[in-house]
């Protein structure tokens, strides 16, 4: 598993790695030291996921095309 920077991960990537870590830990076939490392990373991933979920907020915007120049567009809040 390539170690991505957690901060750069999207929710799904973080969730997937978290799930893999949990399955590894649950299998009980991980040496103790790795267990601790995995747990730490898992905790960070979980925190990252929670953060992503907590930051869920609605924002509605609209595209408005200016009539003058073609391809000139503005994004306005609704």
């Amino acid at each position, binding site marked *: 598993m390539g170690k991505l920077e957690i901060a750069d991960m999207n929710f799904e990537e973080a969730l997937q790695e978290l799930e893999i870590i949990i399955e590894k830990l649950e299998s009980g076939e991980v040496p103790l030291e790795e267990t601790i490392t995995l747990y730490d990373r898992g905790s960070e991933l*979980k925190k990252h996921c929670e953060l992503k979920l907590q930051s869920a907020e609605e924002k509605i915007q609209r595209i408005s095309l200016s009539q003058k120049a073609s391809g000139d567009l503005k994004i306005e809040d609704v």
Partner: protein
Amino acid sequence: MTDELTNLKEFSVSEISGVVKRHVEDGFPLVKVRGELGRVSRPASGHIYFDLKDDRSVLASIIWRTTKIIQSEFVEEGSEIIAVGKLTTFSGQSRYQLIVSNIFPAGTGALMAMLDKRKEQFLKEGLFEKDKKKPLPFLPEIIGVVTSETGAVFKDILHRLRERFPRRVIIWPVPVQGEGSAEKITEAITGFNLLLKSSKSPRPDLLIVGRGGGSLEDLWCFNEEIVVRAVAQSDIPIISAVGHETDTTLIDYVADVRAPTPTAAAEIAVPELKNLLSKIDDFGGRLKRPVFLRLENIRKNMTHIKKSMENVKYILSEHIQRFDILIVRFPNILRIYLQKKKEQLFQMRVAVLDLDFVKRDLKTKHRLLKDLGKVLNQRIEAVHKSKNNMLFSHSRLHDSLSYKRTLSRGYAIVRDKNMKLVRNKDGAVKEKHLHIEFDEGFIAVEVKETE
């Protein structure tokens, strides 16, 4: 002629034709006429002439060669169409006619036939292939919506998104039916794709293209080729949500996912926040549990080991005590031991000395034996010699015994006191006593005087 008639303005034929033309053109600059196609003629000039009719009337219509019409393929006799254009007159034949700028198939039958034709074409091109479908993001950050700003569709989508997972939504407002709607929808889809992913121009990672339910004609823009191709070429995954569940447009085939309704599109677009929260919560528990169990096991083992250690300590203590006692006694034991060893060593040395002595003794004995051997040899030799001598003397005796015989003949032998033979006078003179041997035996004589 009455005055009325006299005062009436007089027109030439061309003049009246011109006035009528102006009236007709000013009165009907843009009309939409539904009718059945009658006789169609396509002369070499490239213009298309046809009659538009219903059960009572006929309207002469022309499509000029220079008019760009997207769908002219269904201009054939018998099909029902809607023609858009302006009315004008043709003075040469005293006719009014429709100059067509656009025509649309009308009536379900015609539309369906055309739809099937296009669908077959796109199918052949592979636009609907499964492997062309892009996977939708699990959780889109920005959702672009292409629909009418005022319709219920956008409200439905926002409402459902708000319930499930509030997101950033950008609407690209477009007309969703009528003339020009296909072009606007196309522009919106390609426009979203052209946006860069930055804070200034946020590029959506998911698009929803849709409108509410309506007639086949109402939904027609979503069957247009340019819209279908724009959807096929979009790098951003697209959910189509056109009409109700039973309405299917070509965009539904080409979209990555087809949603039966706008509300369903929102449901497909985002997972439910509360489910994810409880999933994360569950993951948190599952993350901790094995680690906790592991550590708990280790703790138990440690306790067990600690207990065992205490036992060992107890067992050891007895040994340690014994050891302590031993260590006190050790110098004594050592001394005794050393003493013993010393003695042993001494004895061994003695033994070694003894051995030396024996060796030396043996040597002496050996020499002695050798000497004795020599002596023995000498003795043997001596005995041998003496025996020889004896033998010799015996033989001499024998010989001398033979002289005895002479004694019998009257001779006598003179011997000294040691019975040694006295041979002459000088010998006899030295002795006081002499023995004279006769045949019968000895007589002792005293020496008196020499003569």
